[in-house]
């Protein structure tokens, strides 16, 4: 970490690269964190999407992959940031002129790489064991949509990570993560949920990302523009959360 460049103003590509590189080393050097985070959603898909529920591999690929990248984003940001705050790393960073955007970009890079690995692993399973067949553009498109789709969840994780105490972070993020996934129909299609539960889905960001994933995978068409706008809207709301959280850490890290 001693070669983190010190800049006095603005965000330079070199600074961004430093954060990306740090994040990369962080992931490579901590397989005890990286591997479970990567394998948990993939195993989840293998057990429930392929073994338990037969014949729905294609549909569930899209929704379980959405679930997987949401987890990668929420945890790498939420829990990561909260822990780093506890370790005083944030205080240290604040003493440097390192830009907030650089920190975020580095973290986002980590989440994006995780998301890409998770989706590709699931796609390989789906193709080999689930008999799923798609055009090359669709296989790539699904990765693309879900990598881009980490954004709102990264912001949500970041906001929560900044606002919560480090001890509370993992528990609270799990409490957000699991119901969010369930109510958005990522495990069971929304139409199969009890009636009164179905109405929640459209108010939740993962539902809209899953719609896009299903659309790209050719499973179910959707109103793309609407889903994208909703996700952009949520990203805006979560950005506010981040700003509030950042202000608070400035006062008391």
């Amino acid at each position: 970490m001693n070669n983190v460049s010190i800049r006095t103003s603005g965000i330079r590509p070199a600074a961004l690269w430093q954060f990306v590189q740090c994040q990369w080393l962080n992931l490579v050097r901590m397989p005890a964190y990286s591997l479970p985070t990567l394998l948990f959603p993939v195993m989840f898909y293998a057990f429930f999407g392929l073994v338990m529920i037969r014949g729905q591999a294609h549909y569930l690929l899209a929704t379980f992959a959405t679930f997987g990248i949401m987890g990668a984003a929420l945890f790498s940001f939420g829990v990561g940031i909260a822990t780093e705050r506890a370790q005083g790393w944030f205080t240290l960073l604040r003493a440097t002129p390192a830009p907030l955007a650089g920190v975020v970009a580095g973290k986002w890079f980590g989440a994006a790489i995780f998301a890409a690995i998770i989706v590709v692993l699931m796609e390989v399973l789906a193709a080999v064991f689930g008999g799923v067949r798609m055009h090359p553009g669709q296989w790539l498109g699904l990765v693309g949509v879900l990598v881009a789709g980490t954004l709102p969840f990264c912001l949500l994780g970041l906001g929560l990570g900044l606002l919560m105490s480090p001890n509370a972070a993992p528990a609270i993020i799990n409490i957000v993560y699991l119901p969010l996934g369930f109510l958005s129909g990522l495990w069971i299609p929304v139409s199969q949920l009890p009636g009164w539960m179905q109405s929640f889905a459209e108010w939740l960001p993962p539902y809209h990302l899953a719609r896009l994933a299903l659309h790209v995978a050719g499973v179910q068409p959707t109103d793309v523009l609407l889903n994208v706008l909703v996700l952009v809207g949520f990203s805006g709301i979560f950005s506010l959360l981040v700003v509030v959280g950042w202000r608070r850490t400035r006062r008391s890290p």
Partner: protein
Amino acid sequence: MKSGFVAALSIVGLVVVLVTAVLLLPGPESAPGATTGSSENAGKESLAAPSLTAIVNVRVFDGESVLESANVLFSDGRISEVGRGIGVPHRASVIDGRGKTLLPGLVDSHVHAIGTAGAEAVEFGVTTLLDMFSMPVNLGQMRDQRQGLAPTARADVFTAGYLATAAGGHGTQYGVPVPTLSSPAEADDWVAARLEEGSDFIKIVIEDGSAFSGSLPTLSRETVDALVESAHRRNTLAVAHVSTYDDAMMAIEAGVDGLVHLFADRQVDTAFIEAAVEAGIFVVPTATVMASAYGGPGTEWLRRHEILAGRLGAMQRQSLAQSFPGSESRASMWANVEFNIGALHDAGIPILAGTDAPNPGTAQGVSIHAELALLVESGLDPVDALRSATLIPTRLFGLGDRGCIRPGCRADLVLIDGNPLAAIETSARVESIWKNGYRVPVQQPESSTAQEQTEGSKATPRPAESVDLLDDPTRWMAAADDYMGGKSSASIDWIRLADSRALQVRADVEQGFAFPYAGAMWNTTGIPMQPADHSGHRRLVLEIDGPGSDYQLMLFSGKAMGAQPIRAPLPVGRESVVEFGEMGGLDLATLRAIGVFATSPSDERRFTITRARLE
């Protein structure tokens, strides 16, 4: 700096690995696979532009009538000249058509164009599909493809998109979220939404399930009226799914343009024919799928066809070999189907060839040849049967430049080895297909016979020692009608007993399919339904335990995968011995599977198979 370089390199490496992995993932054309997707576009279309082609000295059926020994010229996706003694320019590539018949690319007027339907159909001479319900995905692209003349190896698709049905009604059981209707007031918006999505016509489901001894919610007469009225106001065809005489009559009274199934419950009478003629409807009888539901002729001749068998993928072969459960119990009704087709045709009602592929007993493309043969068997002349797959759908559905061989027509062409006008089953001798003037590559017949042989030789002889079927868990699988679109489901589990193990089956038999079932199956080989020789075995000893008394044993055997199983009731709580010698119709040399099923609708239950032995 060095660590920065290593990090950069490894990041690039990872990205390359991920992208490569994705690019290696199988595309929709790689068989076999569960084809649940529905994008019927994109793909590998970097095909060479077709140059001028001439098919000479060929018998031409132009969609309407026959021209002997003619020349047909086409280039850039369109037919330029047709006639006898037409000059052939030097630059043309010439195909000798002596002894052969050139047909317009065939139209299948009732399919569900899911997965790779377009690519599958074209290999059998079907170049246009009328989709009677699938999820509306990328309809814009679908339309672009069929309007253009770009070379392609896929059939074009016209579609109804979603079907109009009641909540929980027919069409909602496939896991596709269908927008349903509950009142006539919703009809106009519903139709508008379909046209907005890109539907080419409107399909209305009138199905109370009674034809299959079930009960389903269905649209009210008023709603059907409102749908038809709305479609017609928007200059759109409205067609109806029906399964009974009464529903067909109701559809006619509501003013639909056509019926996309025929009924088998009754023979048509004068009243029906008068109403149909008066209303000017057309009928897509879907004889192929009716044969599969009402014990009609099988498809073995196509599965073993000298030319076509080699083009069948594993999934198509399997689908073609199936039939609807209980089909043989309704076999007495098949005669009604043939009678009705013949009577309607005689009365001048336009008949359109449609298969309802890929339902059990059908497969995309290949089944059109079964349909043509069944239409002729029902009383149509071969030339009328061929019109039903060319000219007639083109006119009634407004398919434009298809279904014809005239200057200006789209160069969708099928070259048949022989004369289907003399013997309709010759239509299956599909030698070459051109789509938009592009010659579609197909599997050559030599390999088809080879494939048939390998299939036959897969039956490996086994010693006739006793086999405890519970020894090998990998041979067992859960089986239920959810696979056929029903609502039953099953799962299996192994439990330990004192000195052995038993198979525990969780079966949830739900009314939802005509003949509900849920249970477990033992496959003779590790591959489901693959035959093996068990002629050394004399009997099956079975013992099951569980609630109810509706258990059935089904023995699957025979050269054809779709052969109906032999059934026997199974008592509960005591050992039963099934002597093979007493079971007529069982072919132990090609035993495929043994199934144990619960068959009456009931709450979820568990039953166990404690003994299963071949002796």
